[in-house]
């Protein structure tokens, strides 16, 4: 029996207790206090995560069962925890960033009518992600995976009175469900063959699995991850998910939700890495997603949508890193991305909050750096980190991935540099458009004001993280390696060469310079090309046409269901059954008409019968 430390129990019990108190006590009595038990739980979870991270850093992992969930005879699905390097390195980022976003949300959502509902679902979302990161088997993983999806449905659709919010929520849920198909099928296949989904047991037999099965599992995992982590072709729900309140977007993009898909790939890496060609495929999909989304991010006008496409792009970059077999680099970027993307979203939220709207476009801002200096500083720090400016967090993690690209050579180098240039372009475009100017096409905000401390302080902390977490890279790698399944080669983080750094910096400078040119030198360029080429603008608005594909899939599914449910079932088959009653009646009525009761008719029938009998006898 493995001794399970208190921190592990606290990871689950603190949020559950906070949710119970919030639901049963504060919500009915004092809804505006609902955040208090929940913030307390965030503190407990973050501390627990830190203590577990320390434990793993010292080289002690943990894989134990808390209780048995499903049982049948000698078979069971445990509910357990696996505290290993992969889980804990993501867990410590998620718990910290998530907790700070909770604090921010307490300020941002103050006075909203559904404050209690918001915080309860928000915290359940956080709990689900924590649970996902420490699961020790695929069934439990799937449990939290689905819970994350459901919470996101309710959070994206938080402003239900808005048509767009409802549509976005439904689109997100159904898209995720289509993607979850892959995970569920994979888990069932594993269970059908091995009756066991514990990671520890499966890692041990990964090498012995038949090649066909491995390939199937790998493809299913990638499909599922593409849904949650918004990779091409299933990325489209994420930009629309901007309809939720900003803290939700920040949590989804930085800490929970989208990281789940990448985490699934990392968890399943012992299988995926054994499938020939699959890692390369992931790299190609990741690179394509990253470039495609960077292009779209550069064309968006809504601040939150720019950031959303930027997340898609960065998720692509993480997948690119994983696919090039540098798992450590991918995880590292996942962690740093969590910090800087949270800052960017929260800053966008501060701008929206100042404008008293749910979101703002580039036409409504401009020249804000004087009026909102703290927001400007934080945003700039995060933007530099995202663009990979030297010694910021993004620099280290992005260079680790680019290093992998250079090691791979060929197309990967071109793709990596294109991504670096693209991300620098869109984020500096956003920075210049928002904080400098203003321009003729911009109606700047009437009374811009800095955020209250409850919102500003977490953003400042996160901004420090966006600058500084890169320096922890080697500690992170040590942690990652300490609990890594031994059957796979360690995901090392090589020291990036100066040539790679220089190339990356050149690419980023190129992107930033282009952004400067198009926003500062040609201040109305961003509006001009839209006005002059409406067809091109429309093409970008529907993601170069890709959005039509899922729409067509949905409408054909609805059409087919209607044909089956209404035309086939109701109008044809049920009508035929109902018609059989009438047919029976008609037959019996026809029979009844034969029985007229008159003697001559009966005699005729007798004679006919006798004749038929005689004819039959004669024939024999």
């Amino acid at each position: 029996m493995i001794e399970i430390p208190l921190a592990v129990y606290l990871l689950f019990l603190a949020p559950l207790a906070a949710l119970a108190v919030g639901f049963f006590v504060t919500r009915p009595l004092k809804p505006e206090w609902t955040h208090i038990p929940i913030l307390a739980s965030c503190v407990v979870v973050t501390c627990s995560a830190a203590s577990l991270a320390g434990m793993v850093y010292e080289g002690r992992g943990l894989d134990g069962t808390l209780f048995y969930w499903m049982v049948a005879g000698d078979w069971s699905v445990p509910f357990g925890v696996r505290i290993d390097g992969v889980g804990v390195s993501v867990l410590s980022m998620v718990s910290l960033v998530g907790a700070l976003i909770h604090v921010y949300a307490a300020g941002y959502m103050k006075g909203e009518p559904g404050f209690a509902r918001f915080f309860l679902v928000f915290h359940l979302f956080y709990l689900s992600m924590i649970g996902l990161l420490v699961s020790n088997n695929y069934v439990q993983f799937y449990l939290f995976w689905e819970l994350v999806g459901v919470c996101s449905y309710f959070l994206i659709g938080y402003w239900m009175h808005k048509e767009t919010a409802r549509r976005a929520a439904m689109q997100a849920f159904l898209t995720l469900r289509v993607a979850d198909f892959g995970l569920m099928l994979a888990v069932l296949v594993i269970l059908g063959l091995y009756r066991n989904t514990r990671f520890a047991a499966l890692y041990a037999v990964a090498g012995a699995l038949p090649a066909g099965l491995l390939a199937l599992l790998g493809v299913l995992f990638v499909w599922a991850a593409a849904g949650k982590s918004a990779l091409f072709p299933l990325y489209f729900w994420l930009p629309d998910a901007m309809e939720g309140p900003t803290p939700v977007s920040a949590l989804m993009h930085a800490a929970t939700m989208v990281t789940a898909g990448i985490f699934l790939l990392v968890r399943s890496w012992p299988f995926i890495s054994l499938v020939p060609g699959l890692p390369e495929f992931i790299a190609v999909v990741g690179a394509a997603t990253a470039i495609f989304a960077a292009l779209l991010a550069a064309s968006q006008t809504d601040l939150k949508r720019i950031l959303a496409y930027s997340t898609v792009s960065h998720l692509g970059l993480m997948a690119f890193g994983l696919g090039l077999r540098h798992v450590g680099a991918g995880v590292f970027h996942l962690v740093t991305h969590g910090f800087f993307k949270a800052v960017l979203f929260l800053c966008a939220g501060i701008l929206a909050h100042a404008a008293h709207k749910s979101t703002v476009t580039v036409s409504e801002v401009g020249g804000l750096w004087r009026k909102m200096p703290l927001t400007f500083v934080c945003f700039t720090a995060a933007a530099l980190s995202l663009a990979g400016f030297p010694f910021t967090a993004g620099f280290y993690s992005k260079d680790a991935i680019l290093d992998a690209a250079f090691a791979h050579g060929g197309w990967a180098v071109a793709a990596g540099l294109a991504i670096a240039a693209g991300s620098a372009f869109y984020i500096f475009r956003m920075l210049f458009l928002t904080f400098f100017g203003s321009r003729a096409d911009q109606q700047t905000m009437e009374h811009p004001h800095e955020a209250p401390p409850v919102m500003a302080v977490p953003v400042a902390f996160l901004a420090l993280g966006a600058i500084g977490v890169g320096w922890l890279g080697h500690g992170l790698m040590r942690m990652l390696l300490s609990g890594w399944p031994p059957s796979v080669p360690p995901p090392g983080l090589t020291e990036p060469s100066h040539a790679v750094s220089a190339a990356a910096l050149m690419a980023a400078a190129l992107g930033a310079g282009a952004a400067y040119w198009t926003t500062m030198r040609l201040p109305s360029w961003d509006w001009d090309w839209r006005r002059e080429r409406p067809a091109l603008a429309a093409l970008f608005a529907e993601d170069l046409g890709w959005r039509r594909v899922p729409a067509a899939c949905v409408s054909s599914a609805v059409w087919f269901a209607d044909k089956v449910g209404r035309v086939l079932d109701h109008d044809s088959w049920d009508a035929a059954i109902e018609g059989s009653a009438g047919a029976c009646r008609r037959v019996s009525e026809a029979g009844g008409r034969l029985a007229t009761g008159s003697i001559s008719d009966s005699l005729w029938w007798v004679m006919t019968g006798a004749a038929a009998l005689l004819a039959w006898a004669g024939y024999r």
Partner: protein
Amino acid sequence: MSQDLLTLFWVMPAVGGLCALLGRQARWPALAFSAATALYGLILLGPASSGAWHSAPVSSPSWAFGIRYLLDCDGLSLSLCWLTAFLTVACVIASWNKDYPPAYWAAFLFLESALLGVFLARDLFLFFVFWEAVLIPMFFIIGLWGMEGRRHAAMKFFLFTFFGSIFLLLGSIALVTRHHAATGVWTWDMAALKGPGGLAGLAIFAAMALGFAVKIPLVPLHTWLPDAHTEAPAAGSVMLAGVLLKMGVYGFLRILWPVFPKLSWELMPWLMLLAGVNVIYGALCAMAQKDLKRLIAYSSVAHLGFCLMGVLSRTPEGLLGGSLQLLNHGITTGALFLMVGFLYERGHRRGLGDYGELYGRAPWLTFFFGVATMSSVGLPGLNGFVGEFMSLIGVARVMPRFVFVGVIGVTLAAAYALPAFQSVFLGPAGKASVSAKVTDLDRRESSLLWALCGAMFAIGIYPAPLLRVLEPFLLGLVPAR
């Protein structure tokens, strides 16, 4: 002794029904007797789980042709009896404020009595008697107290199920006479009967399976179900979907598997195909519905397909999962039909487009409906997932390729359930909307739903104890491989 304990179980509601018929305040005896039955069912857990009745020598005399009064109770029977008893209490409480005649309350108690009989009987003839007895109160519940098209629906329900019952009876008689011809012993004891092989066995199996299939219902024998569920009063739909459909799958488990161990295994792929058709076809039909009750009715077709898939796999996971899913479906769909009933009482409409924006007016109704919808969709952490998932594991173990169909069904479930929930509760209220009439649940209604949702969470989070209760009989059905 032990048989008398079980006799008391099914007789108690019947006595309550008589009291309700004779007394004036019919709902009070209905509540008292249904509650007493439910509590009594809980007490039976002790002896049932210890297997006390299996070892007890059966001493009841044969009546004629080996027909005997044989009752027994194991985990499978007990869990379905609990479902029956608690849903009856729920139905009584849900109809409390309505001005129904005594016969209404009596009908529910007689229905409960007959259903308990079905689940407790171990003699095939007795089983058939109870099986048919279920039809009578249900026929009146639909036909007398239903919606506009009630008479047509009641007749359709009766003819369909009666059509199935004829085959069931013929099959049973053939089975018993064949058994007599082979062994020289007249018996209707389910545990003792062994089906013949060859073509005769196949014919008997097919006839009895047809009888059960109408009840489940298997596509294409399902068209009675949407009409009956839609036209029945709310409490009637609860019993119909919650318990009556379970009789079909129960018949497969209790009779066909033990009596035809080999044949049923050989036919498994074909039956699995039928169950798969149920899952997909039911889900697609549900997607096309505009009426909330019809939508839930079609979703039952899909869910029972999952139950049957699990049960067909004859693996520990599948058998337990399928049987657990029988309970889960009863709880979840029962709750959904109750809530549609509450909604109908307020707005007098059932169309998806007739409501909207209810989350502000009726937050608790929205909450409970949301939970039940998620359970129906198979969200992990709620009861629906455990049953569905374990059923599918069973399928994955015997027909790995076929599990694909089940997972498509799970995906489709989201595509019909969530849009319906959204358009009624979250979506915009149209011009013709009757949302303004809807008030939130009162204390009686919400306490009922708390109980049902509590069960959903409990089974979803910690199903292991209930699965252990189900195990004894079901694990015996696993063929040696």
